[in-house]
Structures are given as structure tokens and as C-alpha cells.
């Protein structure tokens, strides 16, 4: 089986006007916040079979900013993402995305999700190209005529152009025919970011996109995210990497069951806040305190 029928060149050939239109569509998502708030979470509480994992969480994201969520394991980060992607119902509180209800936002394709590495079956028989094409499924569904009932290989020209443009944006076009499992960790992340771009969503949820990613891919990812931001997309990212969080985030959200602190990195990353986030208020003994002190000194 050939790995690629496409010869990638450093300088891609001049594109047709139609392709340029698709590239622009990718850069300027249909559903973006225009100076409004992109995500409003108000008094959100959620629990599984025990005590609440999220308790009265409220915060607001502006259009076109990168907010990074920091928090220890079990802080409710994945629960928050589960509520936003519709896998879990909140017990109370409200969420609105780009001035719509969360359900409406989902079916309008406003929310794109970049999954954690372990949530995907990497041996699934699917190519890089087809993975990115799944980003267009929401749009295909709204289409009139017979095409919405056909498998995606009969997608419209503009969908295929959008996929190509998105793959080009993350420098993965030369791998378009690879099976998704035959990529390195960083490349896999880039493919899923391409899918989010192809979806033309206004709000991107990134679940630990930096885990298991080398420096080169990390730089490339932040480059892509930066241009997505400039195009008016809003980014909400979970990471455990304090250093790159401080470096790249517009604002940081420290989460441990509830919002510990929310603001720009220099105001939020204080010793007290980190102590409270990692150990909970009142729990910090002397030894854990020392460890956190070390951590905050590193920061």
C-alpha cells in the first residue's frame, strides 16, 4: 500500500480561487465570537455517585483568547469537558456558548474537541484524511438533497478543500493517506487540531494536547493555536505543563472542584493559589507546603 499519492512540496503550487476560499473559511470560522463572550459558565455543579466534582463553577471566556485550565487529578477538568461535549449532564447551573444554549451550540458545530491520546483507538482503520473529514460531518448533516445521506466520500468539493487547507495549516498534508495509528504522538495531535479547524468551530476544547509531544510539535501546535486565536477562535485547554501554560495562556483558570483563581498568569500564579489548588484549603501541612513552594519557585 502506498503511503502517499501526494508529493508534498515546501512551496505548494498556486491554488485555485476556490481553494483559497476554503482556506479563508477555515481561518475565519463561521461561528466565532465578535467581541462578545464566547463561553459563559454560571454556577455549574456536577456529581457522579458521590460528593460533587464540580461545585458552583462560574467563569467567562472572551472571544479570541486562550485560557488554560490547571488543576490536580480529580479536580473536575474532564468533568467540565464532558459537560461541554454533552457526555454528562450538569446537576445545576447553566452554560452558554457564543450566545446559544449549549445544545444549540453543539448542533450548530460551535464546539470542537481535541481528544486525549488514550481516548482514541489508534488501530482504527481510518486515514489521516478521513479523520479530518469527520470534522465536516456536522456541516454535511445540515446539507439539503441526497448528499447528506451518502457516505462522506461523496462530500462536496468545498468540504474536501477545507480538509486539505486544515491539513496544510498543521503541516500534515503529506501524511494524508497514512493510517492514523502510523503517526507520532505530536503528529496525531496536529491531525486532531486540523479536524477542529476544518469544523470551523468557534470554541476549541483541547484535552491535554501537549502530553507526549516533542518540542518541535509543541511549538507548531502553539503556532497554529495562535493563528486560530487571531482569527477569533476561543481556546480552552487543559494541561499539566505549568511552564508552557504560563508562557502561552492569556488567562489561567485554577480549578479544584471550584474555581480557585482566574486571571492573567502573573496575577494568578501565586504561592497561596497553587497551594490551595493542589492541596485544597486548609489541607496543606508543612511538608506539602514545602513541595508547593518549590513548585511555585520553579514557576
Amino acid at each position, binding site marked *: *500500500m502506498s*503511503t502517499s499519492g501526494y508529493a508534498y512540496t515546501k512551496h505548494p503550487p498556486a491554488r485555485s480561487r476556490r481553494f483559497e476560499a476554503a482556506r479563508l473559511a477555515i481561518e475565519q470560522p463561521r461561528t466565532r465570537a465578535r467581541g462578545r463572550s464566547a463561553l459563559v459558565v454560571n454556577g455549574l455543579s456536577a456529581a457522579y455517585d458521590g460528593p460533587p466534582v464540580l461545585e458552583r463553577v462560574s467563569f467567562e471566556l472572551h472571544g479570541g483568547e486562550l485560557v488554560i485550565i490547571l488543576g490536580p487529578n480529580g479536580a473536575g477538568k474532564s468533568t467540565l469537558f464532558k459537560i*461541554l*461535549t*454533552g*457526555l454528562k449532564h450538569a446537576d445545576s447551573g447553566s452554560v452558554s456558548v457564543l450566545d446559544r444554549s449549549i*445544545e444549540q451550540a*453543539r*448542533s*450548530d*458545530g460551535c*464546539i*470542537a*474537541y481535541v*481528544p486525549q491520546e488514550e*481516548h*482514541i*483507538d489508534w488501530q*482504527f*482503520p*481510518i*486515514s489521516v484524511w*478521513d*479523520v479530518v473529514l*469527520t470534522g465536516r*460531518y*456536522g456541516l*454535511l*448533516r445540515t446539507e439539503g438533497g441526497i448528499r447528506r*445521506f*451518502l*457516505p*462522506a*466520500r461523496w462530500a462536496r468539493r468545498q468540504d474536501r478543500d477545507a480538509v486539505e487547507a486544515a491539513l496544510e495549516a498543521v503541516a500534515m498534508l503529506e*501524511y494524508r493517506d*497514512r*493510517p492514523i*495509528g*502510523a*503517526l*507520532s504522538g*505530536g*503528529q496525531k495531535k496536529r491531525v486532531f487540531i486540523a*479536524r477542529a479547524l476544518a*469544523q470551523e468551530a468557534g470554541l476549541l*476544547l483541547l484535552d491535554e494536547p501537549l502530553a507526549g509531544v*516533542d518540542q*518541535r*510539535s509543541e511549538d507548531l501546535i502553539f503556532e497554529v493555536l495562535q493563528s486560530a486565536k487571531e482569527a477569533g477562535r476561543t481556546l480552552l485547554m487543559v494541561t499539566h505543563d505549568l511552564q508552557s501554560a504560563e508562557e502561552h495562556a492569556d488567562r489561567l483558570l485554577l480549578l479544584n472542584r471550584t474555581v480557585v483563581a482566574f486571571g492573567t498568569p502573573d496575577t494568578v500564579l501565586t504561592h497561596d493559589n497553587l497551594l490551595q489548588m493542589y492541596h485544597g484549603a486548609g489541607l496543606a501541612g508543612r511538608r506539602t507546603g514545602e513541595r508547593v513552594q518549590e513548585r511555585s519557585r520553579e514557576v
Partner: protein
Amino acid sequence: MQAVVAFAVGVYEQALAATEAVVRMVAVVVGLLPPVLSGPFQYAFMQRALVTALVVGAVCGVLSCYVVLKRWALLGDAISHAVLPGVALAYLLNLPFFVGAFLSGAASAVAMGAVQRHTRVKEDAAMGLVFTGAFALGVVIISRIATSTHLMHVLFGNVLGVRLPMLLMTGVSGLIALICVFVFYKQLLLYCFDPVHASAIGMNTAVIHYGLMLLLTLTIVASLETVGIILVVAMLITPGATAYLITNRLARMMAIAVGVGTFSSAFGLYLSFRLNVASGGTIVLVALSLFLLAMLFAPYGILRRGRTYRPART
């Protein structure tokens, strides 16, 4: 009302005639093969058996891809056992057994989901509970029925005794299953590959989940006559597993699985006639041999594993 009934009867008779025509066409095509191969298929009962087996092989092939990718092998086993009480009740009430089988299969699929969702019991235990319970219920009901040949047919299949109406039902349910897979190809692909994304773009994953379960039930019910309850699971796993070792695209995987399914159906039927052994079991054994070949020689098989794709550089 009478007009409606008359119309329905008319449609049914037309459909039967069409089915017979299909059987004749297949018989003509088979007749072109050398006599060594076509010999067994000069009998009408073998021709009907062949067409039934081909339909079942194709439909099971397609669905087996989802079963393998979604790791639903145990679920397939569970649903196939759970149709038994429906078959028994339908027999007692003098209904077509398709109806009873489909209803009890669907009901147990829902019951499994309910046990899992509302109790602490995990998925595998929920399946085990429901399918052994339903199977036991079926055995108890059947023990009240005087003759047990019917039970043997349901358990092990009776492809050589397929009559035209049964073949028609198999064909119709298979066709419905295939059309559903074609129309909802995108949804099913996305649900298997990345359900979180499916949910995030507003697809109703619960509906897709139960829809796929219903499709599986439909396929199992369509295959009961050919390979029976016990062996239908093999046809729902082996073709997909074989294709999984050969390719890395879902569409190709489905095509290969259909090939494996139909070839093992036809060749298994042929062998069972020549060797005078049970047809359902022979079909499954042919499919298994194809899997063993793939396990050794396929691109993702033992002998070539790791050479198909070198890890990509960044």
C-alpha cells in the same frame, strides 16, 4: 380494509415470485461453473440454501466490522442467545418467528443498557445476566413444546430446509440492515471511532448506540435459519476480524469482510454437501480457516507485523 389486505397479499406474492426469480438466476450463474463445483447446487433446496447463505454472509460481513471495531463480540453473543424466548413464544402463538426473535432481541438489548445504567453492575456482567436469563427462559418455554426439532433448528440452523417465505424474510431484513449502514455510515463510523466528537457536534450518541444494537439484532435474526443461534456469533466476528488484519480503511474492511462472509457461506455449504456434515458448522470452520490464513500472511498478521508502516518522523 379488505382492499389493503388484498394489496398486501399481492405484494407478498410478487415478492415471493421475485425471490424465486433471484434463486433461479443464481442457479443459472452457478450452473456455468465446472460440474465438480456446481454439482451439489442442481437441487432446488441447495439453490435456496446457497442464496440464503450468501445473503447472510454479506450482511454479517458488514456488521462484523462494527462488532470487531466496537469490541462488541460479547454483545453479539448476548443478543443472539436472547432471541430464543422470542422464537419460542412466537412458535406457541403461531406468529412468524422473525417477529418474536426481533422483539426479544431488542428488549434484551435495552435491558442490558438499563441494568448497566441504573445499577453498579458493569457492562460484561450486565450482558451475562440478561443473556443467560433470556436463554434460560427460552429453554423453559421450549420444554413445554412437545417437539424439540424446532429448538435444534433455532440453535444450530437449518439452511438446507429453508423455504421461499423464509428466504424472502432473510433477504428483506438483510436489505434493511444494509441500507441503514449505507445511510448512517458517517454516524456509525464516528460513533465507533470518536464518540466524544460525535456528541460534541450534536449527534445523539444514545440513539446511534441503540440503533447499532437494533441493526445487530436484525442481522442475527436474519441469520438464525442459516447458522443458528450458537454459530451466528462466529459470522459476526470472523469476517470482520479477518478483514481487520488485511486493511486499514473501514470501507475496504467492509468489502473484504463481505467477501470472506459470502465465500465461506458458499464454500462451506458446498463442503458440507460433499462431506455430508452439518452445514452451519462447516460454514463457520471455512471462515475460521480464512482467518487463520490472514493471521499468518496478512499485512497486520504475525509474519508481516510491524513492516507495513514504519513509524513516521515528525
